[in-house]
């Protein structure tokens, strides 16, 4: 059980231009801090341990000390100027993307999940991808940060620093990944009960794969192909599920909770809480409160047959 600096959610493991420039800056800060700390501690220890002399009380000692303190203050100021300069250099690219933004994604915070809404000029091509942000590799993606309930903070340490999602305020920032991969992020502003289980995945993929993914997401949900799935769809549509969830292509159209049109294609369930597997999904549908206490989804006491049918249907929503 060793700890690894630079794990899959570490700011020290950069995979994008913003995170990379911050890491360079971080090493500078660390080096300066260690140097200052060592010098100050050495001075303190020498001051404590040195042999005392009769001459210590002479004015000459005092004026020598005054000079030394003066030099130390000047060095402090110079060090601080160095830190400020490093900060400015690291912060240059923070606010405006390095190139033209490929796409714009609305990042909407909810208690306790994320909604990523992909813009398009054609209204029917607008779609949302809960808890999973897909971006093309090597291109800046513009992020519009907003929230519908309380303040959340969007943070994907491998790629970028934080941006708060504040109700009533929309701010723009940007994100870019330089290598394909899945980068985990997590809400960084305390947002209530399940702040701890409000994670997300950023899936960075080459442009062609990304475009394929977009194309797929724009399509309505797959029609159920087996009897079990058809029964599952019926149960779903007649159960309280539809009061919160939408499945495009069916009558379920509520956007209180995450959209489920392509839920089976996602990596995780419940905002990064569970791997997207059949058993986890069953547990989540039956009683999500035992997994993520306080979340907004009530338990669903379905009959075993119904549950199996719903599972089959939801798992078919690729």
């Amino acid at each position, binding site marked *: 059980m060793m700890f690894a600096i630079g794990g899959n959610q570490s700011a020290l493991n950069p995979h994008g231009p913003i995170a990379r420039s911050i890491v360079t800056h971080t090493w500078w800060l660390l080096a300066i801090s260690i140097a200052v700390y060592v010098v100050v501690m050495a001075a303190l220890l020498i001051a404590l341990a040195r042999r005392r002399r009769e001459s210590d009380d002479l004015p000459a000692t005092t004026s020598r000390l005054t000079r030394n303190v003066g030099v130390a203050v000047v060095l402090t100021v110079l060090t601080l100027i160095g830190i400020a300069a490093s900060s400015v250099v690291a912060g240059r690219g923070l606010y405006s993307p390095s190139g033209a933004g490929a796409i714009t994604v609305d990042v909407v915070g909810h208690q306790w999940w994320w909604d990523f809404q992909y813009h398009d000029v054609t209204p029917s091509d607008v779609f949302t991808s809960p808890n999973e942000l897909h971006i093309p590799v090597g291109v800046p993606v513009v992020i519009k940060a907003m929230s519908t309930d309380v*303040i959340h903070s969007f943070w994907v340490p491998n790629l970028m620093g934080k941006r708060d999602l504040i109700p009533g305020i929309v701010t723009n920032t940007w994100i870019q990944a330089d290598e394909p991969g899945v980068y985990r992020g997590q809400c960084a502003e305390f947002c209530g009960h399940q702040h701890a289980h409000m994670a997300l995945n950023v899936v960075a993929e080459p442009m062609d794969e990304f475009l394929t993914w977009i194309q797929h997401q724009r399509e309505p949900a797959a029609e159920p192909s087996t009897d079990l799935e058809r029964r599952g769809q019926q149960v779903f549509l007649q159960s309280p599920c539809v009061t919160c969830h939408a499945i495009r292509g069916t009558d379920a159209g509520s956007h209180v909770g995450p959209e489920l049109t392509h839920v089976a294609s996602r990596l995780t369930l419940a905002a990064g809480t569970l791997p997207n597997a059949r058993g986890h999904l069953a547990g989540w549908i039956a009683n999500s409160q035992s997994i993520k206490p306080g979340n907004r989804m009530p338990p669903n006491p379905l009959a075993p047959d119904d549950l199996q049918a719903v599972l089959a249907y939801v798992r078919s929503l690729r």
Partner: protein
Amino acid sequence: MNPPPLRDDTSKLRHDRPAERRETITTADEERLRRQLADTWYVPRGIIGWFSVADHKTIGRRYIITAFCFFIFAGILAGLMRLQLAVPNNHFIGPDLYNQIFTVHGTMMMFLFAVPVMEAMGIYLVPLMIGARNIAFPRLNAFSYYVYLFGGVMLVLTMLMNTAPDVGWFSYVPLAGPDHAPGKRADFWAQLITFTEVAALAVSVELVATIFKTRAPGMSLNRMPLFVWSMLVTAFMVIFAMPSIVTCSTFLLLDRLVGTHFYNPAEGGDALLWQHLFWFFGHPEVYIIFVPALGIVSSIISAFTWRPVFGYSAMVMSLVATGFIGFGLWVHHMFATGLPALGLEYFTAASIVIAIPSGIQIFCWIASIWRGRPRFHAPLLFVVGFVAIFVLGGLSGVTLASVPFDLQVHDSYYVVAHFHYVLLGGAVFPLIGGIYFWFPKITGRMMDDRMGKWNFWLLFIGFNVTFFPMHILGLDGMPRRVYTYPDNMGWNTLNLIASLGALLLVVGGAMFVYNVVRSYTWGTVASENPWGAETLEWSVSSPPPVYNFLHLPVVEGRCALWDRSADAPVVTGIRSDCREVLVTDVMDAEPICRVEYPEPSLWPFACAVVTSAFFVGSIFTPWALPISIVPLAITLIGWFWPKKADSDTRAEQPAGSMREARA
């Protein structure tokens, strides 16, 4: 400057009478004066008397003990959090309870421990250090204590009843607003803030008045002990910072209670308004906690190196500069909100600049130790530990001033590490050192120094083991305020180490409490100046008499006791048959006039009861205000009822009759 001679054998010191001249002759006159002063400045006894006391030492002691009780309570909550976080996916504490625990831990540590305990040190020590008989506005002082106590008890009760606030010590809206925080939990938080605001403002006004107007003759501003300077700066910071949180918590209460929309964006309110108002108070708040600690450090360093602190003027100017710059940093808590970049750069600059006065003070202390004669008793160890921890916390603080770096570590465990380094290391270590230092003065008995050293090492090692790994956790992407974390994040080992360190902290804390309790009963009896320190509180017996000084002293130099000549004058002409005190001017402490302080009274307590009932009542109904106005008025009228006295004749005596004479 005339520092005392170097003494090699320091172990004898405890039982030694200090080298300084001491009045041993008690002529019949002096004995009579002593008795009369003791009668005049009596501390009332009995149950009613207990609630009537207006003596700064009694109130200060109660404040300190109460604050430490809250410290222990909040510390236990911290221990529970470390238990929960020791392993991933832990089910020991659920999210509902965990959120209450971290909210109450933060709120209690900040509002009920750190600020009050520092002000309490000021309440106890400032009048003694400046040669005064009591704090100015003694009844207000008593009132502030009860308001503080009732507020704190309310928060403890909510925690025990599982209805404690659960929205963080910062209570960001809209999470704390009416739509997202149902029930009364957030209201309890908002009113707790009101309680502590009132108490802190009252104490600050008293301290400013005490320091500015009742210093002993000769103690001009440039001779004031550094501890008194630090309390003065702190008091001013409280006076300027608190109105902001008053506004902000009152708006919240109004939003929740009577449906205003200050923070509701849907109705033209603004969620960010809260953050500006809160941090305009919240950032100075950390300096309100930290600046008094700087004063404690200076006191300990001068006493335990046997030399005045190096660079008095630089120290004072650094304290004052910290007080000003502290108000220009608040936006560095809001770097991630998306405010305009140019504005953020200003706050980066200000946050970096505040490192300069802190640096100057560190350098001056190191220079003091360099040319001094260090004696390694527990208080000095705690100060050395303070420097070692605080410098690290200061450096991590400078890194947080940088916007790009902050965007990564903001609201992560890096910040948790940082502020525990500056608050626990920067304030609590000096405070505990200060308790070891002033314990003999307050109780008349020495604390066990050997246990004190063990105590120091336990706390020092425990502290670093607990909080250093959190820097790495934060950089590794672990956010704050999560009640649990997944298994595969690479955070397990460091969290376990931190939890084990917390165990050491618990043992260290328990040892401190044990040492206090044991020394209070069985400690070596302390002389009036067991450490050979320089400030005036060490010239009176331990514990000090109720009237503090038999004769008000006249100060002849910056180190009141070390600079005192053998034939030092004292103030005479102050009446001893009533609570008369000398008022001096702000700059040079020249005598101006005499005023009479009020007698002990039950009214401040009654007023605090009504005030508290009003605060608690207004959590539930706006009618609490009109209903409590009448009883509040009654208690205030009783409080300010003029004393039937012969003061008219006394007022005619010119102030000039005060003269300086030999003791």
